């Protein structure tokens, strides 16, 4: 599903260049729930941003379902982000002036669906994360966990090939973190959603199939937690 070969990301040039990724290679299969772990500055978030087409690699190949996506022009990358990739931000990244449903359905509208159809899709997605009843609430009226679940609903509403999550529980307490991880687990197990999640909490790995660990811009371990 995802094939990464010798991926590098340098910030700056020459002697002073910061080497965030020093040439990593790995493969992620469809339906896998993968955790990317590592200390701060290890390159895990940089990798996730490149995989989600939010940033560019300096060098290397990156294909999704055989399509080389790293060299796509911006218009196609935008379309890819809209239709193929879901991204859950650490700080929820919801639009404050939109209700939970509006935050979700605007993407379906962008895909050309009618407002009614888009709303139904949004409600379905919110239902999956247990927030259908709060679809009219704006982000300020939701708890941190609820906001993150809205962000997940936004990411999964378009039924993406891959769902990326950048430390989705970093701002949540244990209870809310569990709720979010339960949602991911259900999506993965029930709907076969491929999920790549960056985290630094060891207990989160209980939910995943595989753990890839980074250190100083290098992939240092790739460990299967359970077989699917």
């Amino acid at each position, binding site marked *: 599903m995802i094939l990464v070969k010798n991926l590098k990301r340098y910030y700056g040039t020459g002697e002073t260049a910061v080497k965030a990724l020093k040439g990593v290679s790995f493969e992620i299969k469809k339906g896998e729930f993968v955790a990317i772990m590592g200390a701060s500055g290890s390159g895990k978030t940089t990798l996730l941003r490149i995989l989600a087409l*939010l940033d560019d690699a300096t060098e290397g190949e990156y294909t999704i379902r055989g399509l080389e996506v790293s060299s796509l022009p911006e218009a196609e990358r935008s379309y890819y982000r809209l*239709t193929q990739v879901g991204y859950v931000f650490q700080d929820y*990244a919801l*639009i404050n002036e939109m209700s939970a449903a509006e935050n979700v359905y*605007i*993407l379906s*509208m962008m*895909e050309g669906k009618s407002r009614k159809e888009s709303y139904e899709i949004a409600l379905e997605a919110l239902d999956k994360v247990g927030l259908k009843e709060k679809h009219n609430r704006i982000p300020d009226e939701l708890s941190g966990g609820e906001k993150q679940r809205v962000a997940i609903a936004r990411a999964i509403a378009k039924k993406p090939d891959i769902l990326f999550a950048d430390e989705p529980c970093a701002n949540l307490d244990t209870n809310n973190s569990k709720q979010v991880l339960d949602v991911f687990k259900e999506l993965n197990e029930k709907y076969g959603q491929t999920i790549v999640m960056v985290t630094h909490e060891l207990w989160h790995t209980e939910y995943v199939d595989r753990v890839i660990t980074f250190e100083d811009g290098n992939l240092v371990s790739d460990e299967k937690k359970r077989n699917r």
Partner: protein
Amino acid sequence: MINDIRVGALIAYFSVKRGNKKTLMFIVFVLSLIFMNLVFLPSMIGGMTVLFTGMMQDYPYGDIVIEPSGDNTYINNADSVLQKVRAVEGVRAATKRLDAGASIEHKQKVVGATITGLLPTEEYDVSQYPYIISEGDFLGELSRDEIIIGAMIAGTGFGSEIYDNLGEVRPGSLVDVTYSNGVKRTYKVKGIMEGSFELVDLNALVNYKEIEDVYGLEESKATSVVVRVDKQGSEDQVKDKIREAGVNEQIFTWADKSETLIKQAMQSMGAIDTMSKFVSLIVGAALVLIIIYINVLNRKKEIGILKAVGITPRSIVLSYAFLSTFYVSLGIFAGLILYFSLMFYFQVNPVVFYETMEIRPQIDYMLLIESIVTMLTLSVIAGILPAWSVSKESILKAIWSR
């Protein structure tokens, strides 16, 4: 593209729906003032123009004035000209006049003035002279040795203190008039005219026959033939018809005359008007840009998020264009309410100029349309530019750098 428009409109709608209403009101208020600034001064200048040109029509020039051709001092056979003019369709009334330079003396005070010889009964249909007699009476058909003096030179009207005057001349007073050819006549003042207009109040009127006698003119000579038309706005057509009727003298409409006479004054006011419009536009454009730019900066992260989740940059830019157009449309609407309220106020309470001249601002619908179009165009540009600039930034920079 349709999806971009739909989503852009939706983002703008949410922004207005759940945005800060106090900020919105403030923005709209400021924009309404900018719009007012664009249209109000030109309306005042328009009011002044109407007032001055109205005076030109009501006193020296009528709607159309015929003057001697070439270097001639007089129109020869003015009666024949009048006959041709009166036969032209669209002409309501016409009369001939004779202007002469003279000095007027009263109790050792002397002032220079233009004395107009006119046919009093015909003036009732052509000018306002008969209706502005503030003291005494207007001239009659048989008036001889009688004169109407302008209030400023009589020393009774507003402005007397500015100009040389005869010192409280009243109806019944005797004045000595020395014409440019040296002929001296003594006239009894029959009336004082007050038109609140220097071209009127610094002049004097006598019967046409007086000037004819003084200058020994024969065969109905005139320095001008003044024409009024049936329908305002038809001056140019009537002018052409008079020409076609065989009148070979110089023919001017009041607008032609206004152009030359008050052109300078209007040019100065026009320059102020243009500068004011230019400054207003620059300030307006800058303000709209600043408002939208601050808005965009405050939403830089949101723009990054929208891009990150797949909203196209075009939708984002369009949303700001819609938002900006919405702000400016509300500003224009509020500005129009303010403008028409002020127009109504000044129709009831005109600006008093020269103590007696009342200036009522004129509503120029073309100017309103121009100003609205200008403001809306600016709003689109002001909305698009900063949003376009931010939408071109990388997603990460937009989301994480402020």
